[in-house]
């Protein structure tokens, strides 16, 4: 009897202790709606950030919407005009192809109150480059020649002419931090958990890793006064749950919803933001080994796919068909004009004919790797079905992200699906530049193009005149598209759903969402 009582007490105590340990409050959960004159925005985000100091984390893309609340960039991107506006920098001028002089505002202070000057811009570039975590953004800077002329003037130098530099400057990876604030706040590691060195419109308040982040209005913000008193970013990994949270009124904005759910939303209450992007869904061939080292095999595969219906089915109307590895919205895109054979056209008979003439006349089997999401899963199944018609068997291999990137960099694949979103066309071109290893390009195809292609790429990289550069890109696209080292499977739109009274949602050069200037109508 005594033992029974003890065990009953243990069980009851366990329940009570666990309740107490969770810091339980009896009050009901606050809803997304504003309460008593205060304005609160609740956002459903899909991923937990790995850290909040963007200069020393490697996965900046997952942090995009959060970084834009905390940090400002030198220039701001206007996605409607594909142009750049002043931000911390009020004006800029090219000294020569590799040096740009920026004039900064003199009223910018970090969240901890320290003043931000030109030296902080240099500190940001230096920290980013030395950390090597965001090398693809910071490698381009020639630090030896970057200098702070005075408090409000800074010269930024690049290693070579960089026509698309401003896309990077407007990216969250280049958010400016205040050196004094970083040091006062305990250094970069401490900033990962409690950032105080940003200058953005919202200040960090708290972070329950894996659950939610809370930000408060920065009353010392140099720009227009931020609208919301607080912004809460909830981490809800399941896409269906994000939309249901919106429908229930628990959140105001849901990122990356399930497209099929969007159609059933009440259009009076909710707005669907459906924005075309510069990101493409691309299937990369491994051109270093059979069967895809044979151009005829690649061309046959390209002709066997129905691009129109694949884009429609996989993206459910929230995307568009592309006909070059550089997507249609990119400044460097050139529409195929008949000067080369475009293989991104559905023609099964021609595909069969080409396969017969190739090194694999009787068909073959290969493995398609991809990271699981609704679009890639759908695309992979469509590719599998359509290639079966011409005698090619596709084994589908959904792969975890960590293994996927390693395999892509090491050439351990036959074909993989990815969606590069970088608006800099050279990043895309790098995938097909045979002089750059797959390791260096973080993937690609291993395809070695003709010497003419190398020369064109080199020439484009130093051509600052937009029209002249685009003329070169046209030739580059002709060579690459004709040799089909990849399949272009359409560009997906950036989709979010939000309450109808929200306005001011912006899109970044990398198609991220920026809610820092969002308000209610």
């Amino acid at each position, binding site marked *: 009897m005594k*033992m029974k009582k003890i*065990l009953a007490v243990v*069980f009851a105590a*366990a*329940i009570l*202790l*666990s309740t107490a*340990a*969770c810091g*339980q*409050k*009896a*009050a*009901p*959960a*606050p809803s997304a709606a504003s309460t008593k004159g205060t304005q609160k925005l609740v956002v*459903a985000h899909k991923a*937990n950030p*790995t*850290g909040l100091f963007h200069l020393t984390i*490697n*996965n900046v893309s997952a942090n995009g919407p959060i970084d834009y609340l905390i940090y400002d960039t030198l220039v701001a991107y206007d996605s409607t005009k594909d142009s750049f506006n002043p931000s911390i920098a009020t004006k800029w001028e090219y000294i020569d192809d590799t040096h740009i002089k920026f004039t900064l505002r003199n009223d910018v202070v970090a969240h901890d109150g320290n003043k931000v000057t030109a030296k902080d811009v240099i500190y940001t570039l230096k920290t980013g480059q030395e950390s*090597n*975590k*965001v*090398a*693809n953004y910071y490698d381009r800077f020639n630090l030896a020649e970057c200098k702070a002329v005075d408090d409000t003037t800074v010269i930024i130098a690049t290693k070579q002419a960089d026509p698309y530099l401003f896309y990077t400057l407007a990216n969250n990876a280049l958010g400016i931090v205040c050196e004094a604030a970083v040091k006062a706040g305990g250094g970069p*590691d401490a900033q*990962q*958990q409690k950032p105080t060195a940003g200058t953005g419109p919202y200040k960090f308040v708290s972070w*329950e*890793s*894996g*659950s*939610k982040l809370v930000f408060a209005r920065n009353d010392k913000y140099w720009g227009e006064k931020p609208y919301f008193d607080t912004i809460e970013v*909830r*981490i*809800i*990994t*399941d896409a269906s*749950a994000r939309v*249901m*949270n919106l*429908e*229930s*009124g*628990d*959140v105001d904005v849901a990122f990356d919803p399930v497209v099929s759910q969007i159609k059933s939303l009440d259009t009076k209450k909710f707005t669907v933001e459906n924005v075309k992007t510069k990101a493409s869904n691309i299937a990369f061939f491994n051109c270093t080994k059979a069967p895809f080292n044979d151009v005829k095999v690649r061309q046959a595969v390209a002709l066997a796919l129905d691009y129109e219906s694949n884009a429609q089915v996989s993206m459910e109307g929230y995307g568009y068909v592309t006909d070059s590895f550089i997507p249609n919205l990119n400044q460097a895109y050139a529409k195929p004009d008949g000067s080369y054979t475009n293989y991104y056209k559905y023609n099964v008979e021609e595909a069969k004919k080409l396969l017969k003439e190739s090194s694999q006349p009787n068909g073959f089997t290969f493995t398609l790797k991809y990271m699981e999401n609704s679009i890639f899963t759908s695309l992979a199944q469509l590719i599998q079905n359509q290639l079966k018609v011409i005698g090619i068997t596709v084994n589908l291999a959904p792969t*975890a*992200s*960590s*293994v996927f*990137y*390693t*395999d*892509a*960099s090491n050439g351990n694949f036959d074909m993989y699906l990815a969606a590069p979103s970088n608006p800099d066309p050279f990043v895309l071109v790098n995938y097909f530049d045979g002089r750059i290893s797959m*390791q260096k390009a*973080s*993937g690609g195809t291993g395809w070695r193009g003709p010497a003419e292609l190398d020369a064109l790429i080199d020439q484009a990289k130093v051509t600052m005149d937009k029209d002249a550069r685009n003329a070169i890109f046209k030739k580059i696209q002709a060579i690459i598209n004709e040799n089909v080292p990849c399949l272009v499977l359409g560009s997906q739109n950036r989709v979010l759903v939000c309450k109808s009274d929200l306005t001011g949602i912006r899109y970044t050069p990398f198609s991220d969402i920026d809610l820092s200037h969002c308000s209610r109508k």
Partner: protein
Amino acid sequence: MLKYIVKRLLWMIPVILGVLCIVFVLSEITPGDPVDTLVGADAPPEVKEAMREKLGLNDPVYVRFANYIVKVVTKADLGNSYTTNQPVAKELMVRFPITLKLTLWSIFVALVISIPLGLISAVKRYSWIDNLSMALALFGVSIPQFWFGLMTMLIFSVKLKWFPASGIDGTAGWVLPVAMIGIGNVGNFARITRSSMLEVIQQDYIRTARAKGQKEWIVIVKHGLRNALIPIVANVGNVLGISLGGAVIAETIFSVNGVGKYMLDAINARNWPSVQGGLVLLAISFSIIMLLVDLLYAAIDPRLKSEFKAKNKIKSRRKAVEA
């Protein structure tokens, strides 16, 4: 009894070492490189190499394993998370109370519903009540938890707006995740209660109790249910242990920041310190739960305690004779 408890606690050491060993081997043979997670797949090779050296990944496997064990045993240091660079122990301690609370409440809810359901089914065998409750139990066992979670969210959050769809800031936030896990277990517990009770109520001592003129509810609850509890308790112990690490679905859907979700994220990111730390915590929790279950057996059924005591007496007599 104290001796038994100490013995069982000591047995946990090889169990945990075994778990560590298995996880370590699995992390070694799984493809992919954690350095890619830390510095990015596109980082220069020299940066990757430096990180590999810093983490000790260039050391031989046995050295790394030994280092890990020494740290865990001497400093309770489970290492730092590869993704957040925070101590794993600290991260787990934030999440464990949440998962524990979720699990205990859901089991409580499941027991409150399932035991009466199983009792009624057994007592009213083959009646419409039995058929209905077993159909409900079958439904509970069969429905996919993921679907059930989304449906509860759709009905109670989106349509009725009774409970929040995510977050556990207030009491209301706990209702749906607890209900999701709890109701998922009702079918299991109810079926076991029923079958166990059916076996017990046919025993002679039940007939004797009835013949003595005991009230029916006393016969059923005091004489019947108490004797039928052993398999139920065993099952509850298993479910409790599994739920501590496996409430992933509820945690994912309702955005509850628990151990299951933490480990799932860690596995996806090849964040081995977090995976190992989580498994150590779960192994300890599971072992303690199993110990409590064994103690509960003795509390429920005094015959088991007597058997244990008798065995000990025989042992000590043998020793005395040998001496």
